[in-house]
């Protein structure tokens, strides 16, 4: 029986706490009385995944019919799937998407469906590479469809293959991939790693254009998403849900298949990363020391390669298919069951150790803007009810924050860092003054469409992702962060935890309460 997550209060006997620090780790002693929020242990995984998939397809939830009854030889079928930003790190083969898509394709073949197209639902993310597609879909699916042009990647800038589905009652444009919405059936295959994923967001964002996405990917929406991990209190999701209703009303038939994973994030060789420090045995200690010492002597680019090759032994905890909203409610239940931990009260200071990977640097560099987004976007928002840190409090992020960028994946990030952040870090000013020019920049569009570049507007979204945190916090300190890059982000850097806490005390007072979010593995705080 997996143990639930819990909140540890640091006392004299508490061993140093493991902090992620990019492609390395730090052991930090937190002051007595600090709280450490540990994630629940991984839930038991489904043993017969293929059987669970078949059952989900046969017994859909909500107002939906079994998949087989929706298929016929004369139909057009589109299968859209989540891209390389999920899960993190990539899971050991077979990826759950490949199993689900194989099952859907087998049923389509049995029904005589020949007009089948797969679409990677990129939204404004970068195109996946062949090896990433092979990993997500499996060689069998890839080899069957890619040579025939039946495996495509969503292109939000291909205006000829986009179509306006309608507008919400608030004037939000819904412009989606034409093939997807004009098909007789759109099957969406998702991986719901965190509670932000899935639901109407899958299609309304994943297959949309910039002109459509901008209605919810903006500063105002993000500041009013508290948090964007809590779908029922997230303006981001409310907007996507409104769009989802427009899509449904327009007659687009969607068969949603959502999957959830447990938090078995690290392979056996990195087992110590998932265990509580006082439970480390001799082997865990030896592994930690060996890994830490080796990483100290490894150049950053090699360390990056090593970590990016990690595959997570995630177990599947659930598969649900059917009508979007009914499916998603069940998905959320399972995600919360795995990740949610009750926490009583906010603290003055929240500490976060940032790992080597976030959704947008798979097989790439975590540049300073992605550090910001991972810390103040994703991890800060891993809460329900109230943030873990009080209004006016301080977040301490641990990450080297080197000013390094991947020119192929993140070309507009370089310019955003050099030209936008030198002028201002205010999300509203950034949005009004610079977004349009980056979003419409033909060179960025060219690189997004033909290379493996994130869309020109993407670094703006990263900045907006942290807008709620910026609005809420009194200060941000990056522990071990490159001083110049940290300053550019508008934050302070500290070389030791003691220094960071001292700097934080100057903002929140001399006797602060401290909470550390011990993640990953993923944990979400239910703060009362």
């Amino acid at each position, binding site marked *: 029986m997996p143990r639930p997550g819990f909140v540890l209060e640091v006392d004299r006997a508490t061993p140093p706490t493991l902090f992620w620090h990019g492609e390395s780790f730090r052991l930090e002693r937190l002051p007595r009385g600090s709280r450490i929020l540990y994630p629940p242990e991984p839930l038991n995984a489904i043993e017969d995944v293929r059987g669970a998939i078949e059952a989900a397809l046969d017994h859909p939830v909500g107002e939906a019919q079994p998949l087989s009854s929706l298929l016929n030889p004369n139909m057009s079928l589109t299968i859209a799937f989540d891209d390389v930003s999920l899960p993190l790190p990539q899971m050991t083969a077979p990826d759950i998407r490949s199993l689900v898509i194989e099952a859907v394709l087998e049923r389509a073949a049995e029904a005589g469906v020949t007009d089948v197209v797969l679409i990677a639902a990129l939204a404004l993310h970068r195109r996946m590479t062949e090896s990433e597609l092979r990993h997500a879909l499996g060689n069998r699916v890839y080899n069957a469809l890619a040579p025939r042009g039946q495996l495509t990647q969503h292109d939000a800038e291909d205006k000829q293959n986009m179509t306006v589905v309608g507008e919400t009652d608030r004037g939000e444009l819904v412009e989606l991939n034409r093939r997807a919405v004009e098909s007789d059936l759109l099957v969406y295959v998702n991986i719901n790693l965190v509670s932000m994923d899935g639901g109407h967001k899958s299609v309304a964002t994943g297959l949309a254009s910039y002109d459509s996405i901008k209605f919810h990917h903006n500063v105002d929406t993000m500041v009013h998403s508290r948090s964007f991990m809590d779908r029922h209190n997230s303006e981001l999701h409310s907007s996507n849900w409104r769009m989802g209703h427009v899509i449904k009303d327009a007659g687009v038939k969607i068969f949603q298949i959502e999957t959830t994973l447990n938090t078995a994030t690290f392979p056996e060789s990195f087992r110590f990363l998932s265990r509580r420090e006082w439970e480390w045995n001799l082997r865990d200690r030896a592994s930690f020391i060996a890994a830490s010492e080796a990483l100290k002597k490894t150049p950053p680019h090699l360390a990056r390669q090593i970590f990016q090759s990690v595959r997570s032994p995630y177990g599947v905890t659930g598969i649900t298919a059917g009508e979007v909203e009914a499916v998603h409610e069940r998905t959320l239940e399972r995600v919360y069951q795995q990740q949610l931990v009750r926490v009583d009260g906010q603290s003055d200071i929240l500490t976060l150790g940032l790992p080597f990977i976030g959704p947008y640097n798979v097989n790439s560099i975590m540049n300073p803007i992605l550090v910001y987004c991972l810390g103040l976007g994703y991890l800060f928002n891993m809460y329900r009810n109230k943030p873990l840190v009080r209004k006016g409090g301080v977040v301490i992020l641990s990450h080297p924050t080197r000013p390094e960028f991947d020119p192929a994946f993140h070309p507009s990030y370089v310019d955003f860092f*050099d*030209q936008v952040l*030198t002028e201002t870090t205010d999300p509203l000013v950034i949005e009004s003054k610079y977004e349009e020019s980056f979003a*419409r920049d033909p*060179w*960025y569009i060219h690189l997004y469409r033909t290379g493996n570049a994130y869309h020109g507007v993407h670094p703006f979204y990263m900045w907006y992702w942290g807008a709620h945190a910026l609005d809420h916090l009194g200060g941000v300190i990056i522990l071990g962060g490159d001083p110049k890059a940290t300053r550019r982000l508008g934050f302070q850097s500290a070389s030791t935890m003691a220094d960071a806490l001292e700097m934080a005390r100057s903002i929140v007072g001399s006797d602060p309460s401290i909470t550390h979010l011990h993640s990953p593995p993923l944990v979400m705080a239910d703060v009362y």
Partner: protein
Amino acid sequence: MKALVISRSPARFLTARILKDRLTDKAIESGPLSLKDVDTPKPPTTEWVRVRPLLSGICGSDISTVFFQSSRYFEALTSLPFTPGHEIVGERLDRPGERVVVEPALTCAIRGLEPCRFCALGQTQLCESTTIGDLKEGIQLGYCASTGGGWSNEFIAHERALHVIPDELSLEDAVMVEPLACAVHVSLRPTRRQGHLAIIGAGTVGLATLAASTRLGDYDSITVVAKHPLQRQFAKELGASTVLYPDELLGAARRLHASQRVGHYVSNGFDTVIDAVGSTSSIESAIATVRPGGEVIVAGMPPRQSLDLAPLWHREIQLKGAYAYGEEDLDPAVAQRIGLPLQVGQRPRTFTIALHLAGQLQLGRLVTHRYRLGEYVPALRKAYHGGREDAIKVVFDLTKRKSVHDA
């Protein structure tokens, strides 16, 4: 009298060059420059007067000479031994209290010669007579054995080279008039002073050029490349639209027109780039970031170097030098805008424009450090390290000396 003198000594020149980065003080002490007791230069004609320097700046070209970094091209155009210093505000000894700035170019008129074809056209910066006439070789006062220079207690200057400064102009603003005149000339070198301008370098030349370009140009934007905090602060104060680090310029050039970028190639860029550094990397950066058919103005004195000129050839870029001062083609509308009275068809002297702008721009704020003559080692070290040590313009302050023998 006391004067700093550069002497002919190959061994000392080499020592300065070798030690300059690791042992800067030693390089200066063992180099060609030394503090000496010398005779006051003798005026060649009655048109020459004795001048007592009050403030005398250290220019980038002086630093290049002291550390033996300058091109050997100049060897024939100077006469050793000489006293450096050509950025000078001083006092005429024959008219006590009258403060003057010196226009140091040693042209035909100064050398007692009939004007060469360039001087006749007012292009005195191109004068052909820098090695003949009443004086020994030297392109400027401060590089000529016959005149002395500003790093001393006294030198001589032709009356025509002296510009009386108004009482309200501070000494600091006045010592910046010569660099400002250079900057005015640089600012007026681009054929088209519109569109997007980039200035690489934010030392004295870069910042003064920025200040001048804000008044004399009509640019949509002026981007300045500055490495150091004080340089960046001054660049913003003086009107830069954007201040960048060197490695950010290529991206900024691309963003101007949302152009293509592959590796180090961008398909479009700044209309004009002014290089105020003169290094290989700065000139190559200028060529890489200017638009096809654009102009690169070389304002910083470049040493001998190896450049990749393929982009210059491929993109039909014009590379133009900008040296010193003469007469300028100033658009009457621009003259009116800056409040400079101009008669129809008149070509004002660069120094006239600089003197007019000096009070408005107040570049005296760029004078960050002052030293006495005897403190020439720390002074030159500070000037050599420049922005790294929060220095922009370093000057010798001779206002407090009690006699010509003081240092």
